[in-house]
């Protein structure tokens, strides 16, 4: 209980821009969020539960202003976790509707065969159009880090963004790309 009182204080200080308090509350809440994710979403495997926790952290980051400093922090974090978990489950259900199980088709079936060049051109086309639809800043960052294989320091120097901001922007760009490719509907 005392520990969660610290969380509320740290969140208040984070709202004022204190990075150390922000990191402290996120690190302190991480094991608790992981436990809650496992308990609340028994359908999720370990990787899925970790994704829900990361979604929760990102949603908290974007919505720090919604925290009411007069209220305890744990229900706020748990509320975000529940909403993000529910979003992910809905996205999975939608994704499931668009997929067709092929378990009963033998892997050697000729109906599954496509020309190698055909698959490559389809994939390249899909990825190019998904990358093209990203915001210009994210496109530029992905191009530097993933295509030209520049280091974080080089990209930081080229874009004027901090290494931390670059990591967050890359993370978001990849999530957005995955969503556009239909791998994951979550943002």
């Amino acid at each position, binding site marked *: 209980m005392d520990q969660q009182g610290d969380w509320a204080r740290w969140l208040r200080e*984070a*709202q*004022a*821009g*204190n*990075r*150390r308090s*922000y*990191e402290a509350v*996120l*690190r302190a809440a*991480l094991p608790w969020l992981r436990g809650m994710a496992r308990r609340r979403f028994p359908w999720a495997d370990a990787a899925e539960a*970790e994704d829900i*926790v*990361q979604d929760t*952290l*990102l*949603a908290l*980051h*974007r*919505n*720090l*202003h*919604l*925290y*009411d*400093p*007069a*209220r305890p922090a744990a*229900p*706020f974090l*748990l*509320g*975000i976790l*529940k*909403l993000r978990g529910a979003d992910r489950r809905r996205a999975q259900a939608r994704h499931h509707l668009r997929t067709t199980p092929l378990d009963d088709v033998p892997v050697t079936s000729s109906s599954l065969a496509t020309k190698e060049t055909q698959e490559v051109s389809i994939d390249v086309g899909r990825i190019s159009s998904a990358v093209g639809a990203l*915001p*210009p*800043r*994210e496109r530029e960052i992905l191009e530097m880090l993933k295509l030209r294989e520049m280091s974080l320091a080089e990209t930081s120097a080229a874009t004027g963004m*901090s*290494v*931390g*901001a670059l*990591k*967050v*922007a890359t*993370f*978001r760009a990849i999530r957005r790309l995955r969503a556009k490719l239909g791998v994951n509907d979550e943002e």
Partner: protein
Amino acid sequence: MRSEELIASLAQDLRGVRPLPSPARLLATWLGVTVPVLAAITLIMGPRPDLAGKCGEAGFLISEGLGVVTALVSAYAAFCAGRPDQPGWKLWLPMLAMLAWLGEFGRQCAVLGVQDAGGMLRLTLDPMCVPGIAIAGVIPAGFIVMLLRRSATFRRDHACLCGALAAAAAAEVALRLFHGSVNIVTLLLWQMGSVILFTALGWFASSTILSHAVRAPRRRQEAG
């Protein structure tokens, strides 16, 4: 990316933020604009001639009171919907208030139907209700969308539905002060029909506006 690395990145990326006012304070702000606007519209349109007499009728007062309760509860629920730590039961209260409001009109219809053997239940055309609700509701609806824009990340559709219902209910309460219906069935169908129509359109429009409003600052932040 591991969660520990994500935390380090997020901490690096932190900017100070101004906490959003509480739902009760946002409700007070909304009322601070909505009540004077509706009072002004009532004065401009001219209060209905039989208003003084109506204020002595229990049925009129009860239905107006339930309209006010629906508007207040709906606006409060709209401001709560975007807060992850607000309990779900608060978000469903507007539906109860709306049902009680509609139920009261239904009760009055049933009573009048029995007393007057159906004479008061003849439906007449009253198309003035639709523009009346629209004129009275547009400013409260626009203002509530403005107040909701910072909390529209979570449960946006629910917030928009409650916000549109709040504006429609407030407009209906004001409408009955400057526009009377011939009988209770006409009122139930035309005025409450207009409330439902306004709520549905307001829900769609506000959800569209807020989904763009939430994306826009993020895009600016990412581009910068």
